[in-house]
């Protein structure tokens, strides 16, 4: 299998060379980009309001070169000029856009073959695909140096390297490629650019408000052994939630469970909330994982018919919790799977596992 792949790789440039044979002369870079942008502008993409142009890589190595930045700048300028979509600036988090324009290039025998495609950030669906070719005469050898980034005019002009502020993006083979300062390399379905999770901006960008509301089911597994033996080991609950920028999470919880063997006690009702400050890591436009500490505050209300009317007995149950979860975006809505563990508590802590649906007003 590897031998077959090696064979194909060895002969791919030759095949491309045949395609780029005399009589099939490549146009200039600017004209090719104009053609590509015009084709993109005619795409049927009514759901797209904002567009990010990022993540172009060399097709064979999946590494970036200064040429990638120039292509992105060129396309970005043309799309802005067309005025159809709002285009994110270079360095802005692409997950804040409705769609992502990305692609790959191959250089062979003086011709550059460029493939581009626009994908829906919400579900990864390819909305448009286009390709072009042009002569590499407008570029120098340094432009195609993989992994050596030279800042473009909008990043300050002068040469810069990874040591000058670029983040590192890990490649599949364990190589580390310098990344342009401020550049966020997106992951889109089908593109094999395995970025380190930490290469994403953890906080919401100005293009993304990040306010979401959720509702869901929450399973409470009490930690107190007496409670487990006298009442129950698992309680079904309901939760309403709010989230700000995927950083501050608030849940309002409710559960009720019957009690049968403690005096005249009839049932217990929990009304409470938990607040968490989490660190989100965006693994792609549709998936964010997060973890962090938080607090749980609530009352376990005693429902005892023998309690005089108007009197209430509430056990204040507060705790310090650890939270971990994942949000799967399906457009502006999505699923939130979350686990919490009470590290310290008043009466009983819990393992909780919740699954909710949310709607994000910032997408």
């Amino acid at each position, binding site marked *: 299998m590897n031998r077959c792949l090696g064979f194909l790789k060895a002969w791919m440039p030759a095949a491309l060379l045949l395609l780029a044979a005399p009589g099939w002369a490549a146009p200039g870079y600017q004209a090719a980009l104009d053609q590509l942008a015009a084709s993109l502008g005619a795409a049927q993409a009514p759901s797209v309001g904002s567009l990010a142009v990022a993540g172009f890589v060399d097709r064979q190595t999946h590494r970036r070169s200064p040429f990638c930045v120039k292509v992105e700048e060129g396309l970005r300028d043309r799309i802005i000029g067309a005025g159809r979509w709002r285009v994110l600036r270079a360095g802005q988090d692409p997950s804040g856009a409705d769609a992502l324009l990305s692609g790959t290039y191959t250089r062979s025998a003086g011709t550059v073959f460029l493939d581009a495609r626009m994908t829906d950030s919400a579900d990864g669906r390819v909305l448009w695909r286009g390709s072009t070719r042009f002569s590499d005469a407008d570029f120098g050898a340094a432009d195609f140096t993989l992994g050596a980034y030279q800042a473009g005019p909008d990043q300050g002009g002068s040469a810069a390297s990874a040591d000058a502020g670029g983040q590192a993006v890990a490649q599949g083979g364990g190589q580390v490629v310098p990344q342009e300062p401020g550049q966020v390399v997106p992951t889109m379905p089908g593109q094999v650019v395995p970025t380190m999770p930490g290469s994403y901006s953890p906080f919401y960008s100005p293009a993304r408000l990040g306010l979401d509301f959720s509702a869901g089911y929450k399973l409470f597994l009490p930690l*107190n*052994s*007496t*409670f487990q033996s*006298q*009442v129950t080991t698992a309680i079904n609950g309901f939760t309403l939630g709010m989230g700000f920028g995927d950083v501050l999470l608030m849940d*309002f919880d409710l559960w009720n469970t019957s009690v049968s063997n*403690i*005096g005249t*006690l009839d049932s*217990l*009702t929990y*009304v*409470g*909330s938990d*607040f968490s400050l989490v660190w989100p890591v965006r693994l792609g436009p549709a998936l964010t994982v997060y973890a962090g500490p938080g*607090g749980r*505050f*609530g*009352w*376990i*209300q*005693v429902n*005892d018919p023998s*309690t*005089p*009317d*108007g*009197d*209430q*007995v*509430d*056990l*204040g*149950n*507060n705790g310090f919790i650890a939270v971990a979860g994942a949000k799967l975006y399906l457009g502006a809505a999505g699923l939130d799977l979350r686990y919490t563990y009470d590290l310290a508590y*008043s*009466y*009983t802590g819990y393992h909780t596992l919740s699954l909710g649906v949310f709607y994000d007003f910032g997408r």
Partner: protein
Amino acid sequence: MTSGAKRRGLSGLGCLLGLVVMAAGCADRGPTNLYSKSLFGVNQQGANMAVDSVLNYANISGNESEIVVVLKNIGQHSTYGPIYGVLSSTDSCASPEVFGNNQVSATAVFGNRGQEIKPGDSVVGEAVDGYGDVVSPNYSYVVAYYCPKGNFILTATDPFGTTWPDGFSF
């Protein structure tokens, strides 16, 4: 929905609002000690109502005084009113009688129905009539003790049936 249920709902909202301003969390309310052991294996000291002061307003005669008893919760948790305090005497004389507005009863009442009496709270005893209703607004009541010196036991009982006996004399 009962008034108790409404109170619970409002209390829950109050708790959540309190959390928004980063309050210290949700505190226990009521005699949680009655349930903490059986539910969570946690022993708690509950409310402890003790005689805080006895105001002897006037010696009406040789064996009668007009007094007001004040109870204070010196325990670690709260309870609810009304707390009924029954006076008895440790003397070998006749049992004392409490008079309020010409009503006769050996009982004084502390706190209102549904009033949470938290640790450190004091409640003033009021005279009640023969039906247990507060004789308002006269707080003071006349104790007839029929002895040269009155030594009394006040046995206080809350709505949950917890009793706290305490003594005083005048």
